[in-house]
Each structure stands twice: as C-alpha cells, then as structure tokens.
C-alpha cells in the first residue's frame, strides 16, 4: 500500500471493495470524488455515463425520449444524476411516472400501455399482469384484456383541459 487516498480516516487502509464502492457512488449518486482521482476526468466519465444511460432509456422508451425532443439527454441526465441505474426499462419507467402531468402527450400512450400490460411496484422487476387492467397516463387511457392492449386517446379538445 502506498497510502495515497487509501486511508479510511481511522488509520485503517480502505479495501479495494470499499474504494470501488466509493468510485461508483461518485459516478452514480453525487458522492464526492475519492481522494487522489482526477476530479475533472471522473466528472467527464460521469457525464458520459449519463449520456449513455439516456441513450439506453431512449431505446426502451422511444416515445418518452421523442416527446422531449432535443431536450431529452439533458432532461433525463439531470433526473438520473443522483440515481444509480436499475436498468434502462425501470429507469425510464420511474422517470415517466415522476413526470406526472408534465409527461409529454406522445409518451402518455407508451406509459399507459406498459402500465396496463405489466405490474411494476417501483422496486423490483416488472411482471406481466394476469388479469385485465385499465391505466391512464398523460391524458391517454390504455385497456388491456387477455394480454392485448388498446390505447384510447381523448379527443383533442378534451385533451387540452
């Protein structure tokens, strides 16, 4: 041990596991950059990671991303900056739910259809629903019966309420 950045404070050298965890926390959860690292470069890596996550979520949730247009990467990256990934499917789902009324109309159908087809408790992997379901999101209603999903849009006048 050369001691650089390896002291946990109590005189005990940090283990590799602890140091790796500290680095992951800095990259994914807004924790301070561990001592000894180039803060600028770790910051560059953090931003690149968020850009990659935004791209992965856009692949899983194309209408959620399209609904944000050119703002997608920046908007998602701000939301994700202190939230470690749970995989792009769940990340996009959590983000879409949190948007609530701010969910772009385009993304409403996508979210409502998934909510009708899958049961997702926000903490573990989504599971396909066994029974029928009706779910609303962004002014769109999705009806799922026997695994088939139909999306019902409100009339434009009603949707502008």
């Amino acid at each position, binding site marked *: 041990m*050369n001691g*650089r*950045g*390896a002291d946990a404070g109590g005189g005990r050298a940090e*283990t*590799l*596991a*602890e*140091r*790796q*965890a500290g*680095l*992951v*926390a800095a*990259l*994914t*959860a807004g924790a301070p950059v561990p*001592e*000894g*690292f*180039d803060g600028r*470069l*770790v910051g*560059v*890596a953090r*931003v*690149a*990671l968020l*850009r*990659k*996550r935004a*791209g992965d979520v856009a*692949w899983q949730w194309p209408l959620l991303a399209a609904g944000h247009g050119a703002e997608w990467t920046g908007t998602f990256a701000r939301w994700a900056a202190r939230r*470690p*990934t*749970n*995989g792009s499917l769940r990340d996009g789902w959590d983000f879409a739910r949190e948007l609530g009324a701010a969910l772009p109309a385009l993304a409403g159908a996508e979210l409502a259809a998934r909510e009708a087809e899958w049961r997702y408790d926000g903490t573990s992997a989504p599971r396909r629903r066994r029974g029928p379901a009706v779910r609303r999101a962004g002014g769109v209603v999705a009806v799922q019966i026997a695994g088939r999903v139909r999306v019902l849009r409100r009339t434009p006048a009603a949707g502008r309420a």
Partner: protein
Amino acid sequence: MSTEYGVGIGWRPEIAGFVADLPGLRFAEVVAESVHPHGDLPPGLDELTGRGVAVVPHGIRLSLGGAEPVEPARVQHLAGVARRLGAPLVSEHIAFVRAGGVEAGHLLPVPRSREAVDAVVANVRRTQAELDVPIALEPIAAVFDWPDDEMDEGAFLTEILDRTGALLLLDVANVYANARNRGTAPAALLDRVPLERVAYVHVAGGAEHDGIYHDTHTDAVPEAVLALVAELSARHRPPALMLERDGDYPPAAALRAELDAIAQASGYPAVT
C-alpha cells in the same frame, strides 16, 4: 483460437437482417446477457450458427475486476450460453461494473495494482472453472486512471494473462482512445502485450466530448483505428477482427464499407 475466421461483426437485433446477408461471414459476437442459455435464440442468430458461423458470447456484466467474487449465477449463465451457441470461446472485460450493491451502468477501470491483479485473477479462475471453452479478456477504454497504479498497462495485462492462461481480446479502438486521451502513441501498447495470445480484435468508432475521446460504438471507425488494425496485422495478424456497433446504425452500405475497410487493413478477404 487457431482457426482463422477473418472479418466478423457484433450481432445485434437491430442489424440481424444485415448480418444474415453477409455471404462470407464466419465470425460474430453476441452480448451474452441478451441470450437465454436454454430457450430459443433471438431470431436470426440461430440461422447464423446453423450455417456454421462461429458466434462468441461476449459478457458485459460479470464484473471480473470487482473486489468481490463473481456471482456464480452470472458465470453459469455465460457458460450455458457458450454451450447453447457451440461457441469456440467466450469473452469478458478486465473491468468492474458494480460495487457495494450499486450498478455503475458502465465498464469501469480497476487499479493497475498487485491487489487488483489478484482480484481479477481470482475471478477469472472462478469463471474458467465453469467454462468448457477458453475465455478471452478485453482491456477497456478508461477515461480516468486510479491514483495508486503500480504497473503500466502492458505489465498489468501480461501478468493477468500469464497467471490465468486466458486469451486476449484486443480492442484497437480502446487502445486508440486510451493513447489519444493520455497523449501516448497507440502502437506502443502493441509492443507490450503478447500478440500471439490475441483471440480476436474489436474495431469500433467513437466521438470526442469535453476534450476526451469516448469509445461510443455509435460513430464511424476513424482512419487512425484502421491504421492500428494495419499495424497490428503487420506484426502478428489476429485470427479474427470484428466491427462493434451499438447504436445510431448507419445504412447498410456504410456498414459494408466499414467491414471492407477492416478486411483491407488486415489483409483478410471481404465478407460482404
């Protein structure tokens, strides 16, 4: 890997049709985590194995460089996928992807220290114990280094390969990215690693953000990376080289041109 496969491509669902139409293809790679070891193969992939194309599972979530032991279920999955595909080998990264129960979402560098070499070697051995075929290890492109690096990259990689008997998956785009970002000569690493241990080679494109070149796999392959393919092939031509593309897929003609450029730089026949 003694067989010469020539030029291959990373199989992805989005380009399955394009890959299926490559008449000379003998080598492809698939993301191991996207294949079920017992269920049906993704549409198109079974046709490739059926016509004798070697398909290598490429793991991205094993975290061989993690201080914790690799998760047995992930190792079993990789071994199962290799059997399912009849693969001649598997590959994974010298990197860690999670720590303290948190997923990083990306491949992160391990320190080039004795302690980290020991951790990587232990995890590679745990993985090899479950595999029926050899494993090739891929060094990653790292945007930053650890403050406690004790070895240069060549010594670090050589020691891991020597102690595990693993093969090398050399990503020339990573070599280029690391050299460009550190201000060193890309070809210098070729003098420092055992080129006769190269199982195959990744070729990909990247882009510059914030003054740093990122190995994105979503951009065109730069001339400098093709030059490195030519340099490597002149010294010790690898048995296979493959194009890695993971998004922003260009028209088929552009992908064909990239495959042809790799063939030309390495001296292998075109597969298009």
